């Protein structure tokens, strides 16, 4: 019997090695898998490359992972916010590398990795600082920039409900990067509010089919 559910958050992240690339879902705090992040902090993996839209808010969640000095590099679109003081201090001290990418390019680079695309030409960023040094091409009279996919070893995402086959549904705008990060990672770990029996999720309404998800864990099971 296939069972992708894990008993605890700690077990779900136990094998994340030092140096891993880890995608973390969420847009600000909506969809951020804070409980999985806390488990990752406790697990102790270091020198991580993190992919997220932001670079942490306040002192919890992703900010706490940064504060614990576990992150070597972050790939994101919008690090600087009113409450990004943890990242700001690390960046100014030269203790974290930043790869800044426009938000739509970030999403498409993640999606491309999950869809087996080796790169794509996008108009976003053409002629700007963020396209410097990148290959460009004129296609049907419009300028495009070549962008590379972003693959990950792990994705930590938050969903509303999941089943033992890994099928997921999300809640409102907490969906954001979850579905594409699940596709782009070798091992996608979803924390969910509720684990349901097979068949309880309407097949017409499943957002992430279980083929993209390797582990499902209830978010309160420490």
């Amino acid at each position, binding site marked *: 019997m296939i069972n992708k559910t894990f008993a605890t958050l700690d077990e779900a992240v136990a094998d994340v090695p030092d140096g891993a690339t880890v995608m973390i879902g969420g847009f600000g705090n909506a969809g951020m898998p804070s409980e999985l992040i806390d488990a990752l902090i406790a697990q102790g993996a270091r020198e991580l490359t993190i992919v997220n839209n932001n670079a942490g808010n306040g002192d919890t969640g992703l900010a706490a992972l940064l504060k614990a000095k576990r992150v070597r590099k972050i790939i994101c679109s919008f690090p600087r916010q009113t409450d990004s003081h943890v990242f700001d201090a690390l960046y100014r001290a030269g203790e974290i590398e930043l790869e800044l990418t426009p938000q739509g390019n970030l999403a498409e680079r993640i999606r491309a990795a999950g869809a087996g695309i080796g790169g794509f030409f996008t108009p976003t960023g053409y002629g700007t600082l963020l396209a410097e040094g990148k290959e460009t091409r004129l296609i049907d009279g419009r300028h495009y920039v070549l962008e590379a996919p972003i693959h990950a070893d792990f994705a930590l995402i938050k969903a509303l409900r999941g089943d033992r086959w890994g099928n997921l549904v999300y809640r*409102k705008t907490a*969906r954001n990067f979850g579905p594409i990060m699940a596709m782009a990672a070798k091992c996608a770990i979803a924390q969910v509010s509720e684990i349901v029996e097979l068949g309880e999720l309407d097949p017409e309404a499943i957002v992430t089919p279980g083929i993209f998800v390797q582990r499902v864990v209830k978010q309160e099971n420490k």
Partner: protein
Amino acid sequence: MKRLTRDQMAARVARDISEGAYVNLGIGLPTMVANHLPRDREVFLHSENGLLGMGPAPAPGEEDEDLINAGKQPVTLLTGGAYFHHADSFAMMRGGHLDICVLGAFQVSVSGDLANWHTGAPDAIPAVGGAMDLALGARDVYVMMEHQTKSGESKVVAQCTYPLTAIGCVSRIYTDLAVLDVTPGGLSVREILSDISFEELQQLTGVPLLRAA
């Protein structure tokens, strides 16, 4: 000289958004446009973090941390609205499915180049978010900004001195003094919103203006 307030600017932009339009309102000043759309006009507001059919802010106590806009403020969903993931959301923009994006700006050039993401200050931590995507994210890209900086320099310029967000992307500029269309021949004055003459507007603007045909 009369200058429009920010609310009056938002009301002026709202007048040009017609029923049935798919619209993204950028963070800051453009967000205020939503307050001026008549309730009986069905306009589809898009937020790049994954919703179409965005409604107004919830009543106090009704906030839901899973239902926010691109500025990370709590919002509501209108009946008939939809949620989707980030790649679909930006496909709606990049793919030319939106009708209008309204954005703030530091500078706009005579050819429609936009600078609105980075001051270029050496000690600034760069953050781009969806700015570059939004700049190319609709058939019409409207900019809302004060006509001049606080020190009196024109924000409409021959060439942007701040780092660019996108090249030639702006179709119309709404300032506190005028509405300007970006045309192949230059900036055409669609409407003066102040009590000043064309010549006076020209004096306050960093580039030659055309009288609307």
